[in-house]
């Protein structure tokens, strides 16, 4: 058996239609001018665009029909998120989808029935996982005590400014658990926003101390660990999807400039010093895309197996590297313009830095891949 293992890649007609629609939608709704308009707004996204995405069914695309979704699974969400990444379109879609997956995979039927239909129809939600900068740290300092009272804070909570529901990783009774916190339960001043390197994104620190939880709003038991493991992988996968789209757009931006900018009497794209690394961007993006849609082929609503874990981690590692390279070279190849805020290269190099750390960097994933592949 080869170490390459599972190498299936399938793409249904349904997925193709979704990709087509999503690409067109994101291109129309999110030209660079629209992206720039959102850079310093509080929410970071256009609520009208988000509402349209909800009405297209994308908020619930990955959720079972029983909970108001389309029942198409994560594999149908990947082309949407890739298209968003391509247009640098920020919305709470990924945060909401991941929070929903956590409830779907970890929660009981009552919780799923109560919460998921709302998320499928556009109520925003997010995960609150990290307490420090280390994605590999499994210690949990947020506690829900025997009385159901929460204490502790979370960092780097995506889309905290808009989320109506927070799925918070906590410890309860000595074991990992998930607290379901509604926005109105947060104390005044509980949210303090981060300034992010990627200005199309929003995240914050949140202090959950003092919140009282009903029993029904706590997810406990063995499902928590598997749900958490799965959602961390799905987070990596969706981040990879976004990064792959952004890398493709970054490449287009570079190619366009290389085809129009003249120096020393020649179009600069004719110089091999620029042409060859640009081809490297293409091949790195192509690899990322192949790994991405392989992963999209094999993830399901079931607990993710070893093949799916390998696929998600590889997709994230490769997409990160592809975008880091593309963003870095995009700035350099634009010369003096590249060093300005006005040049679009800044959007991609900033996106690259954000993508890199989100759900674990390349080393984080390769370290785990080594154990999966070599031991």
């Amino acid at each position: 058996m080869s170490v390459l293992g599972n190498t299936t890649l399938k793409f249904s007609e349904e997925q193709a239609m979704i990709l087509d629609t999503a690409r067109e939608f994101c291109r129309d709704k999110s030209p660079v001018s629209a992206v720039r308009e959102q850079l310093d707004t509080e929410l970071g996204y256009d609520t009208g665009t988000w509402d349209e995405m909800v009405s297209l069914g994308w908020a619930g695309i990955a959720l079972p029909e029983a909970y108001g979704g389309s029942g198409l699974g994560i594999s149908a969400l990947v082309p949407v998120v890739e298209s968003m990444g391509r247009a640098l379109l920020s919305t709470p879609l990924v945060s909401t989808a991941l929070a929903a997956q956590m409830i779907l995979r970890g929660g009981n039927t009552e919780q799923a029935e109560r919460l998921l239909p709302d998320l499928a129809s556009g109520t925003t939600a997010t995960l609150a996982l990290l307490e420090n900068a280390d994605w590999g740290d499994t210690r949990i300092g947020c506690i829900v005590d025997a009385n159901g009272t929460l204490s502790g804070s979370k960092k780097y909570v995506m889309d905290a400014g808009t989320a109506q529901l927070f799925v918070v990783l906590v410890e309860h009774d000595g074991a990992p658990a998930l607290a379901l916190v509604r926005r109105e339960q947060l104390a005044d001043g509980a949210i303090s926003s981060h300034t992010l390197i990627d200005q199309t994104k929003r995240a914050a620190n949140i202090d959950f101390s003092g919140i009282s939880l009903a029993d029904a709003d706590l997810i406990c038991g063995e499902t928590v660990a598997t749900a958490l493991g799965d959602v961390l992988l799905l987070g990596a996968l969706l981040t990879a999807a976004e990064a792959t789209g952004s890398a493709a757009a970054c490449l287009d931006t570079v190619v366009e400039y290389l085809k129009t900018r003249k120096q020393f009497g020649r179009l600069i794209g004719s110089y091999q010093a620029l042409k060859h690394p640009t081809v490297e961007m293409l091949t790195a993006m192509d690899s990322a895309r192949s790994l991405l849609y392989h992963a999209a082929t094999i993830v399901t609503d079931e607990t993710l197996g070893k093949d799916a874990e390998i696929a998600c981690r590889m997709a994230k590692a490769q997409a990160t590297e592809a975008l880091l390279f593309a963003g870095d070279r995009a700035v350099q190849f634009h010369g003096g313009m590249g060093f300005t805020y006005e040049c679009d290269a800044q959007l991609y190099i900033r996106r690259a830095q954000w993508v890199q750390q989100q759900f674990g960097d390349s080393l984080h994933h390769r370290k785990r891949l080594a154990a999966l592949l070599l031991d």
Partner: protein
Amino acid sequence: MSVTEKELGEFRAQVSAWMKDNKPADPGFLLPQSFMEVGSEQQLEFLREWQHKMWAAGYLGMAWPREYGGGGVEPVFQTIADQEMRRHLVPICFNIIGLGWAGPLIVDTGTEQEKVRYLKGILSAEDIWCQGFSEPDNGSDLGNAQIRAVRDGDEYVINGTKIWTTMGNYAKYMILLARTNPNTERKYDGLSFFLSPMKIEGIEARPIQKLTGEYGFTETFFTDARIPADCIMGEEGEGWKIAMKTLQYERGAEAGAAGGHSFVRVVIDDLIEQLGAYSRDGEPLLQDSLVRDQLVKLIIEEKALSLGDRRAGVGPLTTDYPFSLPLSSKLRITEYARRMRQFAISLQGAAGGLYVGDDEAPQGGFWQRAYFNSFSATIGGGTSQVQTNIVGEHILGLPK
């Protein structure tokens, strides 16, 4: 005439059993990893015997017409036979220029006389074929070939030099691209295509020693070499068209090859398999976290190559830059192979400095030789640098 899954399954089992029973024992000398590396009579005779045996058993040329030595069955049988050859790691089919390029060209476009004369000898390995395309001054620029062929009665007189002629010193025939008219407006229109004999007066094939220290190809000198006029394929001036068709077979873009695998695939599994034997800092090498990270990078790369082949077949996932995957495939695969093999040597500690011929060289110097040989693919068939220009210009639309 449709073949059932059951028939194919039975056939696979039958070939598999045959390969298992007939796989030659280790001959005690190094066998070539590709058809480009046949460098000694000893290797040649061994491989000739092996190919003949596979053909006689009916596992080569299966889809070629029966009357010319083929099997006359559907191509899918040959595909299965080839897969089983690879799976059982049997020696390569060395006569690939005949089996894969010249042969299908003759099957598809040759005259009856040409088919009768050449095809059976290609399959049985009696007749070895070589290719005379590249010239010393015209490597990548094939259309500029300058070797001259001048009609003189019933013969053409050939003068000039070809280079990188794989098995030029062993071949009985050459597919030869030569200039019959130096005065055409377009350089391509002056070229003609010949099925030329090699063992005649006026042709000298001088073996070239390779980077690896081995031999495998020649510089081939034509000095007033006279070949029969009926060796021309098609008409005068059709050489470029026929050469392009030949390249389609060579690059696998056109089906029709007689089958057989022509090179040993070296994959990441081969690399990982040997690592159990090494240590680093007194600990098993495979426990070293830096080594592990490098290995995982290579595994990701090889997996992405494999998945790229699949994605290339999914239309909606190739709309960005159509053909970027197939057109960059040679570049990506050969550059990966080169780096992977180089890395393999770096893991061998002091033993990495040993070479083929040293009793203690790991795996007989397999990786050292494989690394050096990998340049035949990053240079041959268009260097990686030229390939990168092609991808940049044709796929991304960057200016020349």
